[in-house]
C-alpha cells in the first residue's frame, strides 16, 4: 500500500497567509490591500490634518533619504513621489524573509482648501514626511466683529 503525503503548503506560506489575515482583521480594508502582496506595489500611507493656519500632510516613508523624496504642488494638488532602491547591502547573504516594498511610489492629495504655494514647508524625521501648507488668508476662518449701532 502506498501512502501519499498530503500536499501541505510550505510553512512560510502559512505564515504569510496568517499575516494577511491578521492584517485584514487589524486594519481597515484599504490598509490591507495597500500594504499587501495582493497589489504588489508600494503605496505609502498618507494622512491629512488641518489646524487653524495650515493643512498638514503626513506620509509614512521609512528607510528613505530626504534627497530621495520629491514634493511638488500644482493646481491645488500635492504630489509626493520617490523611489526606494533595493540595495544589496549584505555581502553573501541569503534572503530568509522579504516583506518590505521597493521601487517607485507616487501619491497625490487634492487639498480641500486654498494654500499659499510659496510657503509650503516639508520635514522628514524618523521615516515620516510632514508637509505643512499654510492656508491662504481667504481660506482661514475669520472672526467677524459685530458692530453695534
Amino acid at each position, binding site marked *: 500500500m502506498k501512502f501519499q503525503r498530503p500536499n501541505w503548503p510550505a510553512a512560510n506560506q502559512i505564515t504569510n497567509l496568517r*499575516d494577511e489575515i*491578521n492584517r485584514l482583521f487589524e486594519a481597515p480594508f484599504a490598509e490591507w490591500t495597500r500594504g499587501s502582496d495582493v497589489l504588489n506595489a508600494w503605496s505609502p500611507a498618507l*494622512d491629512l490634518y488641518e*489646524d487653524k493656519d495650515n493643512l498638514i500632510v*503626513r506620509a509614512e516613508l521609512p*528607510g528613505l533619504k530626504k534627497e530621495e523624496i520629491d514634493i511638488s504642488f500644482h493646481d491645488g494638488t500635492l504630489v509626493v513621489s520617490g523611489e526606494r532602491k533595493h540595495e544589496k547591502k549584505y555581502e553573501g547573504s*541569503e534572503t530568509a*524573509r522579504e516583506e518590505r516594498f521597493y521601487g517607485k511610489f507616487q501619491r497625490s492629495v487634492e487639498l480641500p482648501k486654498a494654500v499659499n504655494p510659496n510657503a509650503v514647508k516639508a520635514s522628514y524625521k524618523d521615516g515620516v514626511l510632514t508637509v505643512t501648507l499654510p492656508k491662504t488668508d481667504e481660506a482661514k476662518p475669520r472672526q467677524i466683529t459685530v458692530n453695534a449701532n
Partner: protein
Amino acid sequence: MNAVTQNETQRPAAREEQNGSRGYLYPQVNIAETKDGYILEAEMPGVNKESLEVLLEDNELTIVGHRKFEANAELLYRESVPRDFRRSFVLDPAIDTAKINARVENGVLTLTLPKAEQVKPRKVLVE
C-alpha cells in the same frame, strides 16, 4: 523558512490581552542570513531610539515601537494605522544573544544577530 526565526510567534490573542482592545501593528520585516549571522530590518515609521524597545526573553525576541501622532490638529483623512508596532520572533539557537545590536534610522530598525563562534562554518585544513 530558516529565519532568525525558525518559527515566528504570532499570537494575536496574547497581543490583544496585553494591550486591551487597542492591538498592535505588525511591522514589515526583511531577514537576511549571512555566514556570520542574521540581519533583520523592520519598518517602523515614527519610531526613534527613545521610543523603541527590544526585549529578549529566553529565545524570544520582541520589538516594540511606540508612536505619537499629530495631536494639535484636526484629522481630515487617514490611511495610517495609529497604533504602536510590535512583533516577536523565535531566535535560531545559534545566535549569540549577548551580541545582538540594534540601530534605528529613518524609521527602519536594523538588528544584527551574530551567530556564536562555534556554530559558524569553519574551514578544516586537509593535510
